[in-house]
């Protein structure tokens, strides 16, 4: 449905003609949803509203599973008492006046490319429901599984492609799945460890003893069998687009090459760092380069209830050079943003790094921090995001939003808008219930270029 200023609106933003076209139960007012929020937001000036929706072609979501500490990453509190301040110091960035954690030196050098939201806020502090909220933009419901961003993008971007539209590296959280959109929108998980020399994508290589010629023959046999059957049934041929996509993928050397990291020069591989997150980001870059619209890179271990120094910086006890979560992230994230920029892909690729919540401002007795959804940080770059800015702020000790609170639903609407997906667009559950892509989110207008 399109919005037309001046046309006869119903109060829900649906024109009368749309109403007639939608027909059926719509006339009973069943299933029409509140569009006012997003519509009002889009009526703002400039940015996405001028173009309607954003034009990012792809999105790479770095999912920092477990909930990264905002205080040790993008929202340091050097002036806070020591039990809040934590073990690390802030450093300056390429944007005057903006400081981030000292463990992020490479990212600090690229601060002019990224936007930091320091006032994310959510009421959900348990992993399962919190990552559902952050990955779908909906608070989880016991009666309906909502689709994740990647699933929605896979669902609305049409046209046959050889590469799958939604790829998870190496695995995905159940809440990053297809929800009610069903199997066709489910992410394709590579499996394996991209940092390993023998990394192979699950089920992409021919089964031992078979090969392209035999797969081709099997496809021919199968289509002949189905033709025999159809001639008996008297029904028209039924296409199986998913089988055809699988066939095109496994028989296309070019498509398979997209997953082959040995294709990259050694110095490029080194730039991303030798660990799983870095090589996953490199693989994500290869995929968006080849037109994959959504890649979810999953990085585990951010649920740091204890030993922040060991987990976040060192990686193992006695490390001379830190290889913990944050240095690994810094290397990978800065390489990804920098590499995309140099290749001219950053403007059309939205990069997001986030987890499901932040951590308690006060250190606990184990030298760690516990779950803290009241305020946390998310960073975005490229894809129509205006870099070099900080949106919102937490209060003095990082306990709550000080200004411009942003909800996960707001973030969702913004992500969809940047990716050119109308947040009001209606999706349908298997039993036909209409559900909008996003509900209740307000566009973060200042985030947009």
């Amino acid at each position, binding site marked *: 449905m399109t919005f037309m200023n001046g046309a*006869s*609106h*119903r*109060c*829900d933003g*649906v024109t*009368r003609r749309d109403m*007639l076209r939608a*027909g*059926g*139960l719509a*006339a*009973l*007012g*069943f*299933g*029409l*949803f*509140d569009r006012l929020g997003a519509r009002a937001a889009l009526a703002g000036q400039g940015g996405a509203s001028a173009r309607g929706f954003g034009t990012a072609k792809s999105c790479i979501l770095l999912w920092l599973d477990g909930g990264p500490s905002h205080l040790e990453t993008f929202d340091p509190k050097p002036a806070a008492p020591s039990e809040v301040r934590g073990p690390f110091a802030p450093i300056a960035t390429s944007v005057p006046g903006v400081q981030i954690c000292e463990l992020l030196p490479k990212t600090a050098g690229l601060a002019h490319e990224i936007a930091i939201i320091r006032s994310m806020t959510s009421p959900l502090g348990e992993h399962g429901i919190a990552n559902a909220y952050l990955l779908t933009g909906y608070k989880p419901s*016991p*009666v309906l*599984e909502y689709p994740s961003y990647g699933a929605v993008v896979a669902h609305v971007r049409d046209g046959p492609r050889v590469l799958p539209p939604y790829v998870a590296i190496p695995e995905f959280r159940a809440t990053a799945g297809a929800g009610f959109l*069903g*199997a*066709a929108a*489910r992410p*394709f*998980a590579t499996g394996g460890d991209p940092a390993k020399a023998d990394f192979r994508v*699950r*089920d*992409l290589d*021919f*089964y031992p*003893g*078979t090969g392209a010629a*035999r797969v081709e*023959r*099997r496809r021919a*046999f*199968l289509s*002949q*069998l*189905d033709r*025999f*059957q159809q001639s*008996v*049934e*008297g*029904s028209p041929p*039924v296409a*199986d687009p*998913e*089988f055809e*996509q*699988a*066939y095109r*993928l*496994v028989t296309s050397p070019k498509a398979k090459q997209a997953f082959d990291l040995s294709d990259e020069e050694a110095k490029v591989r080194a730039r991303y760092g030798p660990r799983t997150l870095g090589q996953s980001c490199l693989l994500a870059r290869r995929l968006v380069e080849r037109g994959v619209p959504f890649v979810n890179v999953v990085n585990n271990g951010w649920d740091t209830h204890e030993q922040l120094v060991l987990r976040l910086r060192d990686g193992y006890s006695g490390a001379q050079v830190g290889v913990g979560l944050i240095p690994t992230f810094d290397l990978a994230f800065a390489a990804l943003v920098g590499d995309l920029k140099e290749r001219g892909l950053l403007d059309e690729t939205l990069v997001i790094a986030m987890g499901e919540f932040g951590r308690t401002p006060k250190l606990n007795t184990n030298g760690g921090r516990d779950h803290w959804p009241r305020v946390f940080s998310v960073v975005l770059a490229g894809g129509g995001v205006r870099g070099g800015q900080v949106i919102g702020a937490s209060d003095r000790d990082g306990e709550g939003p000080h200004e411009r609170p942003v909800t996960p639903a707001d973030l969702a609407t913004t992500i969809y808008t940047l990716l050119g997906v109308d947040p009001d667009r209606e999706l349908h559950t*298997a*039993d036909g219930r209409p559900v909008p892509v996003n509900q209740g989110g307000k566009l973060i207008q200042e985030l947009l270029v």
Partner: protein
Amino acid sequence: MSAASFLVAASLLVAVALDSPTAAAPAAAPATGPAPPHFDTEIVPVLTRAGCNAGACHGAAKGRGGFRLSLLGGDAAADYAAIVQEREGRRINLAWPEASLVLAKPTGLLDHGGDVPLDADGAGAKRLVDWIAAGAPRGPPRRLTQFEVNPPAAVVLHAGATLPLRAIARFDNGPAQDVTAWTVITAADPSALAIDASSHRATVLRRGQHTAIARFLDRVVPLSVTLPLADEPVDHASQPRAGFVDDEILATLTTLRLPVSPPADDRAFFRRVWLDLAGRLPPLNELATFLADPASDKRARAIDRLLASDAFVEYWTLRLGRLLRAASLPGDATGVEIYRRWLADQIAGGVSFDEVARQLLTATGDSHRVGPANFVRTATDARDHAELVGHVFLGSRIQCANCHNHPLDRWTQDDYHGLAAVFARLERGRVVTVAARGAVTNLRTAEPAVPRIPGNRDLDPNADNRAAFAAWLTAAENPYFARATVNRLWQALFGRGLVEPADDLRATNPATHPELLDRLAADFVASGFDLRHTLRQLANSETYRRSATALPANAVDDRFYSRAYARPVEPEVAADMIADVTGVADQFAQQPPGTRAVALFDPHAPAPALDVLGRCSRVSSCDGGTAVGGLPAKLHLLNGELVNGKIAAADGRLHRLVDAGASDEAIIAEFYVRALVRGPSEAERKFWQDAAAAAVAQPDEAATRARAQFLEDFVWSLLNSREFRMNR
């Protein structure tokens, strides 16, 4: 806009600017003259008709623009307060009714976010004016006692035919009144049946049986209009009939002028009935015996044998478990196993389904010892429990009534929260107990909900009401339980329910065959709620025995049963079929060898094969629907272990046959009969012969390998073919 309207608008703006209350508490209606419009029964329908109280406008839970009406007029008292009393009565202007906000906004005199839904010169606006002019009275209590739309069912004989619709209401059992103008009639598919809102005429746009629903106040009634699918009548008088199922099906087919496909042959019937009742392919010895049997009642005897088999118990335990959303809880695999054994015992022992329901609804005790106590643990809380009960036993989506009265069904918020209150005292730990207290809040009243049998009566707030609810549910005259159950049995055997979706039985979602559903339900009750009785009844019908092969004239039919419908087999059944045909059993983690996939009652039991094939996660009940497919699944079928490993296994059926020196023709024939329960056709035989020759056009030992590879590819394509994966 007329000059007069301008005047009204201008003066109204003045009134608003002065910010003076324009209406005091309304005076009583004048004692003389015609009675003013009655708020509850004559004004509310105007608002509904104009869409004011729709869910997207002022009927939203939070209202709109500060003005909230009850959804579709479900709460007239609240609506009266909102219009007449809120904001110091500023929404009506007794001195100048036309200037009332409640009129000026929807007629477009004042800016209104929701368009101009009410014609300023129309009858709706006039009624509002008359009502306000009369002092905007609520009026005496007046109850709608009857509502019908005529004709409720009609047949027309050409596209473009129109027929007038007339809605009749009686209040307090008084005289019939024509309320057509205030009734909202909506076609299920407006591209098939157009309803003109001003002339109240239905126009049939294409062939088929089309439905519409008519809403007036709290009543909704369905109506159907049929345009036969062919110009020439068909005569089904001489079609064989096994009972009322065939009578009803053939009657509808006669109206629709749909010819029937011939009976399925013995092989097709046998494959179908095995898959439906036993969840597996027929073994070759059973097939041979059946084919060789010359007796005319052999199909009926085959059905009886299957209904008495262990395979039936195993498969239907899975089916019922899926319906009940049975699944292990985190860290507790014992409860679900106890649940499975109990359910299997009920099915094996032929326990009547009303008794099964009563046990599920009233069980308490240790869920590691008392099977049905696990039903309580499936639900996370009382509301979830009520929704599960609605889904399973009422075939109804009562959850819609959580936040507002169900807009398409009879359920109210009081029904929903009242049913939840029945289960509010249950403690849902490993040991299920009934606590001394426990309540749910009725969102409408913000008070503890009064326990209630939905749509029926309130219960004692101080009692454990589960037995009372179970007794009501399983009574012979209960309109939901038997219907919901037989509809699911029908769905299991015919691939779709008489009502679809099977958990959405309501007046506004009519069955394709309403009389048949009634008769099946009555028959089920009369049999003592015997699942096997109804399954036998259905499987023995001529309707069930029809071929899935379409005739040119019935290819379009997808719901009237002029032929059988092919449907995908479920993931558990598909996994077992692959294992049986290839002769390589699955070994599931933590399960004894020989465990079949259909015996994996717990959906969380590790089973990669089922994940690939897409099993139901049971987060919500999967009524037949499963998440089959997806690119990863197809990739796995192409390159993964599930099928490839079984085909290539040295001790699997294919390589054993090759090693034993079987001919291509023998191997192909054996796989055909095991997988498809038929031999290859002449054309298929020729095709495989040529393909084999092409594959082995090499000398010596290379030929041996090439032949084995050809046969592997043949089996692979067979196991991935549409015919194999379908039950038809």
